[in-house]
């Protein structure tokens, strides 16, 4: 009985819904504020994403005639649930609740489930704008998948070179390895992989320069064209929480070594680190460059970013 309670606690509070939502909302709010400040304007209050979510909850949900009711309403919940499950697996620096029950490949596929839930939601809404949005979301997914996979293999190989198997995908093993001999970022051969991962984060979340799927100016909010009320709010919340998850994943994979005494302080360190990562990877590109065209995103990721990741994979492979 106790571990059921403990599970509920984990799911609902610490690495689960409450923690992720709070940190996610703060990160998103901070991101919008920083972008505004970089454009020399005041920018919304810090809790703006929370107000957006609450306002969406207050609105009425319209289900269009061509939409499939059950799938239309289930898609956001499925996406959010899969995302929180990823949150449970990502170790917060040293301690993690369930990181033994899954590894990087599972996390990769759970993030695909989150993307697919948005795509299924768009398909179920039956609007042509959503159709175009869904095809762009898929192209974005294909484009960031190659570098993301190369980074995972590089990290797996680096952390697992000594294990009998020659490779490890389990995040716990990666974090322990970093605790033993210095976090991954300080090994020079891993720096291209870290850079590639920093590039992957905005495309995975769909932040401004790469948000070809929800380009409100081009295809009227793309995948969310038909969503109003609580489902739309939940999709936006998933968007914010995903920011936190990706930063936490980056910290776990590349900055795992640093760990203070106990969990609470670790969580704080992760939050600070993810603020820095958000600023570097999402706010600056958002303020500085315009939105990419669809095939530019694909070409950019499969040549530049994949090349970076490949360099570090080869370096790690040669045992450096």
């Amino acid at each position, binding site marked *: 009985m106790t571990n059921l309670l403990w599970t509920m606690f984990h799911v609902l509070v610490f690495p689960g819904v409450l923690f992720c939502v709070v940190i996610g909302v703060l990160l998103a709010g901070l991101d919008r504020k920083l972008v505004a400040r970089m454009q020399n304007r005041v*920018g919304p*209050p810090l809790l703006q994403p929370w107000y*957006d979510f609450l306002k969406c909850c*207050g*609105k009425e949900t*319209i289900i269009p005639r061509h939409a499939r009711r059950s799938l239309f309403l289930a898609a956001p919940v499925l996406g959010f649930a899969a995302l929180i499950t990823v949150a449970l697996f990502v170790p917060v620096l040293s301690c993690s609740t369930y990181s033994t029950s899954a590894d990087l490949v599972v996390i990769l596929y759970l993030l695909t489930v989150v993307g697919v839930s948005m795509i299924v939601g768009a398909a179920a809404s039956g609007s042509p704008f959503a159709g175009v949005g869904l095809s762009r979301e898929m192209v974005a997914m294909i484009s960031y998948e190659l570098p993301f996979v190369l980074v995972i293999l590089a990290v797996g190989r680096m952390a697992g070179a000594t294990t009998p198997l020659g490779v490890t995908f389990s995040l716990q093993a990666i974090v322990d390895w970093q605790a033993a001999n210095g976090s991954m970022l300080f090994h020079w051969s891993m720096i291209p992989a870290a850079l590639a991962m920093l590039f992957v984060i905005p495309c995975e979340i769909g932040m401004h320069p790469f948000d070809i799927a929800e380009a409100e100016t081009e295809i009227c909010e793309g995948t969310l064209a038909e969503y109003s*009320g609580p489902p739309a709010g939940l999709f936006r919340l998933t968007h914010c929480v995903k920011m936190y998850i990706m930063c936490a994943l980056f910290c776990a994979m590349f900055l795992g070594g640093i760990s203070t005494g106990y969990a609470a302080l670790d969580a704080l360190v992760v939050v600070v680190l993810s603020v820095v990562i958000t600023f570097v990877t999402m706010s600056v590109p958002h303020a500085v460059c315009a939105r990419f065209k669809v095939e530019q995103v694909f070409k950019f990721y499969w040549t530049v970013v994949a090349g970076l990741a490949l360099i570090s994979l080869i370096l790690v492979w040669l045992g450096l």
Partner: protein
Amino acid sequence: MFQKMIDKSMAKSPWIFHVNAGSCNGCDIELVSVLTPRYDAERLGFRLTGTPRQADIVVVSGPITSQTRDRLVRTLAQVPEPKVVVSLGSCPRSGNVFKGSYCVDGPLEKYTHVDVSVGGCTPKPEAIVAALAKAAEILAEKRKEMRQA
């Protein structure tokens, strides 16, 4: 308690959907300039959305020409319930200099109840910000009425 938070947050994050019912683009430019650093409507939580489905405030600009009339009516119907209609500039309210022409189909009042309107042939951005702020309050009240009803 949660409902009160929602009502408060309605006023804090109203999203705008701009319908151009045949306007001469003077008011459209002014509306977009509201989001620039100088006037920065985003401080109050405003955000321009692409679809009426996610809109709270519908800003209509231009005399309702016969071509845009059906599209306007259809778009206004597609906005989810607690919605506020703002008429931008003098054209929607009265048709300005185009009043009485064969292709202008009368003031906006004929199609929906206009909550807030901004006078001025291209009103100043501050006027638009003031109007939007008032519209946000009306939105919160509408949500409260809807909840009580």
